[in-house]
C-alpha cells in the first residue's frame, strides 16, 4: 500500500514509461549533448563551414516532447534542430556527414545543419526560416486527418518565432480545422539577442493559445517529466481528434545563438544559473532516485554516447564529398515531365 502510494506520487514520466523507455530517453539526451559538443569541436577544428545553432541545455525539451511519438508521427524542426533529430531517431553518422557536407549525409551535403531531415522517421526537417515550419506542420496534420493515418505532428519552434505572422496563421488554421498537431514552443528566453521581454507582448507564450481557443500550458522545459506530461496530453488530445494544443517549454541555450554571438545581451550569472539546472543531470538524478538506473549505469550511458559520437564523426570525416558535376541534381524529380 505504501509502495503503491509512492508510485502514484512519482513524477508522471516514471509512472508512465517503462524503465527501458526512460533509459532510452536519457541515452538520447546524452547523445544530443555529445553531438553538440562534437559539432562545436569539429567547428573549431575547421571541419565545418557555415554556421550552427547548438541546443545544449535544451535536451529535455527535444526528447521529452517526442516520447509518445512513433515513426509514423511527424515533427517539423528549426534552425536549432539537432536535438529534435536525435529525439526522432536519426542516425548520428548521417547527421555528422551532413554537417560535414558529405554525400553520405542526410541531405547528401546539400543542406547542412539547418536542413537535416529524415522523412523515413517522420522528421520533416529543420528549417532555416524562423517560423517556416509552422504552416508545414499544419499541412502534415491536414494530410493525416484527410488520409486517416492517425499520425500526430509536433511542430517545434522558438520564442522568437512566435512573433512571426506564420505562427498566428498556423495556429488559427489548425484550430479552425481541428487538426492533430501540437505546437511546442521552446522558449529559451531569446531570439538571437532579443529577449522575449523586448519582443513579445505577453509574458508566457502559452497565453497566446487562448487567441485560438486551444489549450496552452507553460512547463519547466528542463524537467523531462513535466515536458512529457504536458506534451503527451496534447498528443493524446490530437490523436483523439480534439484538435491542436500549445505547449511552452521554458528552457535555455547554454551556448551563444551561433558562433558569431558575443553574448552581450545576457549576463554570465544568468548563464551559470541555468547551467546549474542541467536537464541531463536532473534526468539522471530522477532515474537514479527511482532506481531505474544506478549511477554507474548513467555514467555508462554517457560513455556510450561519447563513443557513438566519436564513431559518427569518424564515419562522416571518412565519407566522400559530393561530386561537383552533381551540383544541380535533385532540383527536380528525375524523369518527371519536362
Amino acid at each position: 500500500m505504501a509502495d503503491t502510494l509512492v508510485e502514484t506520487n512519482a513524477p508522471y514520466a516514471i509512472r508512465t514509461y517503462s524503465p527501458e523507455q526512460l533509459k532510452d530517453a536519457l541515452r538520447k539526451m546524452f547523445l544530443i549533448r555529445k553531438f553538440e559538443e562534437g559539432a562545436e569541436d569539429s567547428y573549431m577544428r575547421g571541419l565545418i563551414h557555415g554556421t550552427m545553432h547548438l541546443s545544449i541545455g535544451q535536451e529535455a525539451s527535444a526528447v521529452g516532447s517526442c516520447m509518445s511519438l512513433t515513426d509514423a508521427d511527424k515533427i517539423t524542426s528549426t534552425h536549432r534542430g539537432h536535438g529534435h533529430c536525435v529525439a526522432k531517431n536519426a542516425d548520428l553518422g548521417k547527421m555528422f556527414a551532413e554537417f560535414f557536407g558529405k554525400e553520405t549525409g542526410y541531405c547528401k551535403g546539400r543542406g547542412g545543419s539547418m536542413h537535416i531531415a529524415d522523412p523515413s522517421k517522420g522528421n520533416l526537417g529543420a528549417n532555416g526560416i524562423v517560423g517556416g515550419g509552422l504552416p508545414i506542420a499544419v499541412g502534415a496534420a491536414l494530410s493525416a486527418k484527410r488520409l486517416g493515418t492517425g499520425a500526430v505532428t509536433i511542430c517545434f519552434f522558438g520564442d522568437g518565432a512566435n512573433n512571426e505572422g506564420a505562427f498566428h496563421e498556423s495556429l488559427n488554421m489548425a484550430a479552425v480545422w481541428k487538426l492533430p498537431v501540437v505546437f511546442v514552443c521552446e522558449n529559451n528566453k531569446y531570439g538571437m539577442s532579443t529577449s522575449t521581454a523586448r519582443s513579445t507582448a505577453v509574458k508566457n507564450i502559452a497565453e497566446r493559445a487562448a487567441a485560438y481557443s486551444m489549450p496552452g500550458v507553460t512547463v519547466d522545459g528542463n524537467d523531462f517529466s513535466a515536458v512529457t506530461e504536458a506534451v503527451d496530453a496534447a498528443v493524446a488530445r490530437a490523436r483523439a481528434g480534439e484538435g491542436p494544443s500549445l505547449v511552452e517549454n521554458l528552457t535555455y541555450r547554454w551556448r551563444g545563438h551561433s558562433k558569431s554571438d558575443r553574448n552581450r545581451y545576457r549576463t554570465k550569472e544568468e548563464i551559470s544559473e541555468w547551467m546549474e539546472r542541467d536537464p541531463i543531470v536532473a534526468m539522471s538524478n530522477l532515474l537514479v532516485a527511482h532506481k531505474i538506473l544506478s549511477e554507474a549505469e548513467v555514467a555508462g550511458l554517457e560513455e556510450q554516447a561519447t563513443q557513438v559520437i566519436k564513431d559518427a564523426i569518424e564515419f562522416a570525416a571518412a565519407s566522400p564529398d559530393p561530386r561537383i558535376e552533381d551540383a544541380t541534381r535533385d532540383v527536380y524529380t528525375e524523369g518527371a515531365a519536362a
Partner: protein
Amino acid sequence: MNAMTKTELRELSYAEAIREAMDIALASDERVVLMGEDIGVYGGAFQVTGDLVEKYGTDRVMDTPISELGGAGVAVGAALTGLKPIFEFQFSDFAALAMEQIVNQAAKVRYMLGGSVSVPLVMRFPAGSGTGAAAQHSQSIEAWLGHVPGLKVLQPSTPEDAKGMLLAALEDPDPVMIFEHKILYKMKGHVPEGYYTTPIGKAAIRRPGKDLTIVATSMMVHKAMAAAETLAAEGIDAEVIDLRTVRPMDRETVLASVRKTGRLVCVYEGVKTLGVGAEVSAMVAESDAFDFLDAPIVRLGGAECPIPYNPELEKAVVPQVPDILDAARNLAKGRI
C-alpha cells in the same frame, strides 16, 4: 486541332476548362484537395472552382482563412505528406505574402534534403490587368517565380491548354505554378473531353510564318495573333509562338523560329524590365541563333509603372495590337 469542323468541337470557357481539369482530378485521385479563399460556396472570386464544393464537399474543396502565407505553407506541408493540393491565390498579387513558402520552402526543400522528398503541389494565380482593379490586383509576377529553380511556371493561353497543363501539373511530382489571365477566364475555345495533358516546357507555334517571330505569353498571344492577321494582309508573314512555359523555357522552339525568320519581337504583359521577354531575348542573344538575327530584338512589355485604375491608362500601360503592329512593321522593313 483535328479534322472536325468547328461546330462539332466542344467549346468551354478557360475557367470552365480549368474547373473540368480539377473535377477530373478530384474524381480520380483521393489525394487531390483544393485550397483557397472563397473557393467553396462562393465558387472563387472568378468562379473557377464554381460548384465543385457541392460535388466534393468542404473537406476536398477547402475555404482557407485570409492567410496567404500560412495557407500556402499548409499546402506545402500537405504535399510533403501525401496530399496533392491545388492552391488558388485569389489574385496573383497576394502571392507576395506567400513568397517565403513558395520560394524558400516549396521550391527548395527537395534539393535541400538531397532529393529525399518531393512537393507535388499546384498553385494557381489569377493574373494580369484589364479588370479595373488597379495596382494591387493587376500584376503579372510570373518573372519572379520564373527566376526560382525548383519551380515550374506555366502561362496557358487557351482553354485547351488551361485544362491540359493543369492535368500535366498534377502528374508532375514537383511544384508547378500556373498563371491564369483573368481576362481569359471568359474566353471560349475548343476543349477535348476527358483526360489529356499538355506538355510542360513545350511552346506552341500558333501561327507559322517566315518573316518574323513573335514570342508572346498568356493574354498577349491573342493580341499577337490579331496583329499577325493584319500583318498577313500587308504581306508580312509572322510566326506566333505561344511560350506557354516560363520555366523551363522551350529554347529549341524559339531558336528554330529565329533561325528561320531572323527577327524577333517578345510580347509580354509584365513590367518590361526583367520581365519574361528579357529572358527570351537574352536566351536568343546568347545562342547560335544570334547569327541569324537581322535586326535588334524588340521587347514589348508592360510600362515601368504600377497598373493604373483609369481604364484608358490601364490599356495604355500594357502592349496592345497597334504596338505589336508598329514593332513588326518596323522590323519587317528590311525583310520584305
